[in-house]
C-alpha cells in the first residue's frame, strides 16, 4: 500500500505520457516502413525500416514536390512574424511603459479582435483578393497572418515589457537618450526572452493555419498544411508517405515548441500565467 502511494502517481504519469505519445511514435515508425508493411493488418512492430516514405514525399516517388509549399509556409510565417513584431513592439511599449489614457480599453480592443472568428471576414477578403488579383499570392497571407497574431502579440509583449523597471528607463532618458536608443539599448535586452516567445508563438500559429491558406491560395502560393490536405482522401495506399509528410511538416513546430516549453505556456495564456 505504501509502495503504491509512493510510486503510483509516477507510474500513472509515465503511462499517460506514453499513451499520449503513442500515436506520434507510431506515426514515426510507420513513416520508416515500406507501404506494404505500413498497411499490414494486424500492424507490424518489427518490419524492416526504409526511407521510401520520405523519398516518396520529397518528390522522387512521382507526386508533386513539397518544396514550394514548405518554402511558402516559411515565407508566410517568417515574414508575418517579423511584421507582427514591427507593429506590436511600439504598441506594447506605449501600453506598458508610457501610460496611455484608457490603456485597458485599448488592450481589450486588441484582444477582442482575436475573438472575432476567422470565418467572419473570410468572404469579403476572398472577394477583395479576387477583384484585386491577389488570389494565390503569398503576401496576402502574410498580411492576414499578421492581423491574426497581432492582438496576441500586443498582449503578450505588453506583459513582458511591463517587467522592465521604470527606473532604468527614466535614468536613460535623464541621460538624454531618445526613444529609439531607449528601445534598443534598455528595453530590448531585458524583454528579449519574452519577445522571442512572442515570435515563436506567432510563427507556430502562422505555420499551422489552414482555412485562409486553403481558400486564398491555389497552385503557386500553396502552404504546407494545404499541401497536406492533398492526402485526405488517399485511401491508405501511401500510408508511409502520409506519415513522413505529417512529420516533416510538423518538425519546425515540434522543435520550436520543445525548445521553449515554459515560454510557450506563458505566451499561450497571454502572459496571465507565470
Amino acid at each position, binding site marked *: 500500500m505504501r509502495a503504491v502511494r509512493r510510486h503510483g502517481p509516477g507510474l500513472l504519469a509515465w503511462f*499517460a505520457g506514453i499513451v499520449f*505519445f503513442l500515436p506520434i511514435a507510431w506515426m514515426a515508425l510507420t513513416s520508416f516502413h515500406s507501404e506494404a508493411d505500413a498497411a499490414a493488418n494486424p500492424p507490424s512492430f518489427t518490419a524492416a525500416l526504409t526511407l521510401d516514405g520520405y523519398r516518396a514525399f520529397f518528390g522522387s516517388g512521382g507526386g508533386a514536390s513539397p518544396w514550394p509549399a514548405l518554402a511558402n509556409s516559411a515565407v508566410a510565417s517568417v515574414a508575418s512574424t517579423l511584421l507582427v513584431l514591427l507593429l506590436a513592439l511600439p504598441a506594447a511599449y506605449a501600453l506598458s511603459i508610457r501610460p496611455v489614457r484608457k490603456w485597458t480599453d485599448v488592450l481589450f480592443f486588441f484582444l477582442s479582435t482575436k475573438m472575432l472568428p476567422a470565418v467572419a471576414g473570410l468572404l469579403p477578403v476572398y472577394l477583395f483578393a479576387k477583384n484585386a488579383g491577389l488570389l494565390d499570392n503569398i503576401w496576402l497571407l502574410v498580411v492576414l497572418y499578421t492581423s491574426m497574431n497581432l492582438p496576441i502579440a500586443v498582449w503578450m509583449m505588453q506583459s513582458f515589457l511591463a517587467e522592465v523597471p521604470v527606473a532604468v528607463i527614466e535614468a536613460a532618458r535623464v541621460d538624454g537618450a531618445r526613444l529609439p536608443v531607449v528601445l534598443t539599448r534598455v528595453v530590448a535586452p531585458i524583454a528579449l526572452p519574452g519577445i522571442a516567445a512572442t515570435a515563436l508563438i506567432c510563427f507556430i500559429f502562422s505555420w499551422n493555419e489552414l482555412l485562409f491558406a486553403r481558400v486564398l491560395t491555389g497552385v503557386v502560393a500553396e502552404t504546407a498544411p494545404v499541401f497536406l490536405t492533398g492526402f485526405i482522401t488517399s485511401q491508405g495506399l501511401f500510408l508511409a508517405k502520409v506519415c513522413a509528410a505529417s512529420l516533416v511538416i510538423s518538425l519546425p513546430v515540434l522543435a520550436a515548441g520543445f525548445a521553449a516549453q515554459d515560454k510557450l505556456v506563458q505566451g499561450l495564456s497571454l502572459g496571465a500565467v507565470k
Partner: protein
Amino acid sequence: MTATTAPLTRTPVRAARRPPARLRAWATRAPLLPALVFLIAVTQLPFAATLVISFFDWNALYPKARRFTGLDNYRQVLTDADLRHSVWTTVLLTAAVVLASLVLGLLLALLLDRRFRGRGIVRTLLIAPFLVVPVAAALLWKHVLYNPEYGLLNGLSHYVGGPQPDWISRTPLLAVEASLVWQWTPFMMLILLAGLQSRDQQQIEAARVDGAGDWQIFVHLTLPHLRRYLELGALLGSIHIVQNFDAVFTITSGGLGTANLPYTVYQSFYQAHENGLASAAGVLVVIGSLVIATFALRVVSSLFREEVSRA
C-alpha cells in the same frame, strides 16, 4: 508577477524640457497607431462587409440576381435543418472537447505536480500532441489510428481479440472530438500545472499540520486556487475550438453530421457559392463567440485587476 505590471500607478517619464501637452499626448499615442490602424483595416472592415452581405440574397454564380432580403438569410440558417444541425454540432463539439480536455488536463497536471523519476521526459511526451500541425494530427487520426483495415486502434484491439469497428462511420462526431481532446489536453495541462506550481506551499503545510487529508486539501485549497486557471483554459480553448476547421475538414470533410459552423460557412461560399447565406452563418459564429468573449474578457480583466492591486 512582481510590482512591475502597474502602468496605471506610474508617473509619466519626465523629460528635461517638456513639449506642449497636446504634442506630448500624440507622441504617447503614436506608437500605438500603426498596430491599431492595421488591425481595424484587416479585421473590422471585412467583418463589416460580411454583415452587409448577410442581408443580401447573393449567389456568386448568379451575380445579377443579387438583391436585398433583410433577415431572410438568418431565418434560413436557423430553420434549415442542416444548418441548424451545424449550430448544434458546434455547441456539442466545443463543450465536449473543452470539458474533456480540461478534466484530463487537470488529472495529468496533478500527477505531474508530484516529484518522480523522469518527470521532465513525461512532460515532454505529454506536450507533443499540442505541437503537431493540426492538419497532420487530423490525418494521423484519420488514417493511422482510425482506419478499420490497418489502423493502430483496431490493430491493438486485434491482439486482445476485441471488435474491429469502423470508428469514423460509426461514431463520427466522437472520432473528431477524440482527436481534438488529444490535441488540447496538453494545453490545459500546461496552464493548470503552472497554476498548481504557484500555490502557497506554507498554507498547504499548515492545513496538513491541522490534520487535513489529501482530498480535503484538494477541495478546499487547490480547487479554489485553480479556479482562475480553469477559467482561463476553458475560455482560450473555447475560442479556438469554436472556430475549428482543420479536424472537421480533414477527418470527415463535414460529412456524417459533423459539419460545424466554420465548416458550413466555408462550404456554403466555397462550394455552393451562397455568399449571403455564408455571411449570415458567419455572423452567427461571431454572435456565439461574443457570448464566450464577454465572459472571457471579464475573466481576463479580473486577472488584470488582481495584478494591478497586487502591485
